[in-house]
């Protein structure tokens, strides 16, 4: 009788473990697929493909697979879409920001030490303030605290540095922003991206191209087209498919030709 009991316990445990492992493999597979699709869509700045990538994470969450990473990548897709709609002054920017904030708060709830999620959340708070400056009193502080949390958790995380440098650059000077400080911080972020060695393919690894292109943009704004071109070339060196760099390179080359 005892042997039967032990056998049943063994069968139960084996079945549970196998099911759990299978389920985890399946979740990981979809996170990887979604992450790859999101990266490719971002390369081409393709709205439809960003939404398609987002839909993969949305399906994971609909199955009650409350994965911190699924929430994070949904938030990242929301950030990409909100940034796109923000430029075109589309009302959907606000909707994606709200959804992104909700997802990133969930990602942090499930993994408090998720520095990337803290930093991205801080950025989305900042974008909400850009849409509605009267929220600055409350969300400004939340944004500040989220950045502080991210830096405390991973001071050398290049995405944390990238997002904070971007925030500092676009914050008006009377509210503590500084273009010089931002460029210095972005330089550190770029150095950290160069050193980053991804150990877990599921974890965030985006941003190197964004950091380089931000610097290129800022150099262009300051009128240093040669320096800007260097950053564009560096971007294309690490990712020849990065659409933003490809688009900018031609116009930059023209500007430089005019200058010469």
């Amino acid at each position: 009788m005892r042997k039967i009991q032990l056998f049943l316990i063994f069968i139960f445990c084996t079945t549970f473990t196998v099911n759990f492992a299978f389920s985890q493999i399946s979740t990981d597979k979809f996170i990887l697929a979604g992450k790859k699709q999101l990266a490719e869509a971002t390369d081409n700045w393709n709205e439809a493909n960003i939404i398609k990538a987002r839909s993969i994470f949305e399906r994971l969450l609909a199955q009650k697979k409350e994965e911190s990473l699924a929430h994070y990548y949904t938030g990242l897709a929301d950030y990409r879409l909100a940034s796109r709609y923000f430029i075109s002054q589309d009302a959907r920017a606000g909707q994606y920001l709200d959804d992104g904030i909700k997802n990133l708060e969930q990602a942090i709830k499930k993994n408090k030490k998720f520095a990337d999620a803290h930093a991205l959340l801080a950025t989305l708070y900042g974008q909400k303030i850009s849409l509605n400056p009267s929220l600055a009193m409350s969300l400004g502080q939340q944004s500040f605290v989220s950045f502080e949390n991210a830096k405390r958790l991973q001071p050398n995380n290049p995405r944390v540095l990238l997002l904070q440098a971007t925030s500092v650059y676009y914050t008006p000077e009377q509210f503590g922003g500084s273009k010089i400080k931002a460029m210095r911080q972005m330089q550190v972020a770029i150095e950290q991206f160069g050193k980053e060695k991804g150990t877990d393919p599921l974890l965030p690894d985006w941003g190197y191209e964004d950091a380089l292109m931000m610097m290129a943009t800022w150099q262009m704004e300051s009128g240093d087209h040669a320096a800007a071109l260097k950053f564009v070339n560096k971007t294309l060196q690490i990712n020849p498919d990065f659409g933003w760099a490809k688009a900018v390179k031609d116009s930059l080359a023209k500007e430089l030709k005019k200058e010469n």
Partner: protein
Amino acid sequence: MVTGTVADQNNKPLPFVNVFFKDGFEGDVTDSTGYFEFSTTKTGERILTAMFIGFETYERKITVQPGAKIKLTIKLLPTVLQTEGMTVSASAFTSGDEKGVTLRNMDVVTTPGAAADIYLAIQTYPGVSKLDDGSGLFVRGGDVSETVTILDQATVVHPYRWESPTGGVFGTIAPFLVRGTFFSSGGFSVKYGNALSAVLAMESLGLPEQTSYNFNLGLAGISAGAAQVLVPGKLGMHLSGNYIATDLMFKLNHSKEEFSVLPNSQDGNFSLIYRYSDSGQLKFFAFGSRDEVGVKVDQPSFDAVFTGSGLNRLYNLQWSDLLRENWLSKTSLSLNRFQSEIALGIINLTQRDDTYKLRTDQEIEATKKMNINFGGEIEYTINRFSGTVPAYRVLLDPNSEFFRLDEKFGARRVGFYGESVIKLRRDVALNLGLRRDHHNLSRQWVTDPRASLLYSMTKHSSMRFSWGIFHQFAAPISYAPGPGNPNLQAMRAQHIILGYDYRNEKYQFRAESYYKKYDHLLLADASRGSLNDGYGFAGGLDLFFKYGELFKDPVNGWISYGIIRSKRYQARKIVLQKSPDMISDSYSYEYAPSPFDITYNLTIVTKLNLTPQFNFGFTYRIATGRPVTPVVSAVKDPVYNFYHPIEGAVNSERLPTYHRFDTSATYYQPLKGSNYVVFYAGLSNITNRKNVLDYDYSIDYSTREPRTTNFSRFIYIGFTMAFQSFDLF
């Protein structure tokens, strides 16, 4: 194979919709024509989902047969109602960070003429009548006592500083002690009991996320505060102190001569917040304030000086936690202790009110379409009066006859409520609730059923309808045998409100009509203190137009306009000649305009962002003068040397129209890091208008003089600093 199309309510194809089976990953995202197509191998009963941001999620059960082709036409409807944070009841203004809020802390502190006071800022909103320069909230024809103030579930029984019969000069609770405010001018939820007209519910600051300090120095005082993180994410405290001394301010504005003791006040706040888990929190909030004033009063027989002081303390311990993921529980235990001392001639009266309260509120998100709220409260109030009062009301001379008072009377009220907020359709929500209250002195159970219906016609516009019964019990001392009437019943009001609301990114418009019927109101009575025979009504229309966003749009602000008609059955003082040498005061009763019948009330608040750092604003108010009962003649007392006034028809005259024009300007200067300093200046009552607040009669009532406002043209300057480190420059 599953194929189909997705369109919106106008049959316009919707691209980018995520269509998939909920129990698997098979799915597709619609193309530009709204078309989707995907295959599936799993058969049986399955749930197909279609999701797109800004639209209601679509779900449908489908039986998948092996090899079968399924063709679907899906219609997605835009999200117009979010159950989360949905306000179904009419007449509500909320503050916080949510979308669509109407009254933020920054609105309060930047409203010219509001002196950074929550109550004065709320007076610029519709439904609140402006009776004088004070901060009393007279809502839709109701008395100031018909508005209840709540902080973190605790009742703030005396919410005003420098109390007066019309409320007080300012509110007790400063805006930067609270993080959220809910104000309803009628039709509010069953959560709130023992209030006939309105509710102001505030939530104090939560756990500080970073250590910060603030310092303020103005013409009338100095204040400082700190938010201190003790254990990051776990334990923190807020500490603040405020000292108001008006000497310098009155000197500068040449208006101090009528004060024997210049208005002064001190207050302090301490709160400690302990977050013991992700969702659980204990908060201890303690507040104390003291105020004092002395005013010279016209009295023919002696040099009269009125002195008044108040001491107000509030202690509240609140626990909140999620009992389950969808169940929020909040419970608080509070004590509000108020003590005042007033002296004028023979009057020397000390009042002490203690209110103990235990309250619990439970909020359950039962389903995606239904929230259930329930809770209860026990409130025990003790009123104490001691001191001397004149034997004859009008003889105040220190040598005149007096009565000694020493009254203590307590009352217990027990109340509980339950309500459900149901999303009947994607665009219709219903709030149904019931509350019951028992009061031990009236020996009465009262039942308040209330209902509100919200219909969102479009994403931007909605209609609201609210109906409900509201009860309020008189203060305990009113039941005391002798000065009061032990047989008093609860006062009762019925609210009917119909409102329309339109809001988009740029502006908000709200129109609300209301009818409020009163019964069992208190009426003055010569022998029993008061009777329950009062009745009346208030009906009107409130309009509100808010334009632009603070700090975003160069011009922003709001206009509110209210029109009201209100009548009550009221007491009129008469004189009875009982014998040749005895005259006594008595009452007759008549149906007449209520004392709060301010026919129209217009407020215009405009703020101009002249540069990102410099703002200028003004507030202009105009309101019909309040009704007053004139004294038409007087009879000399046969024994004592004073006159008994004979009143004319109740509220048959009105004070002149009230006008006030206030301006303010602020300059924001950033310092190192996130530190900043804001310089501010205000010029109140810029036209120096002498608004009439009442009439003062001569000793024989043969002549009268208008009593005008204490607030003549008035300048105020100061600065406030906020900093997170002491490395400022």
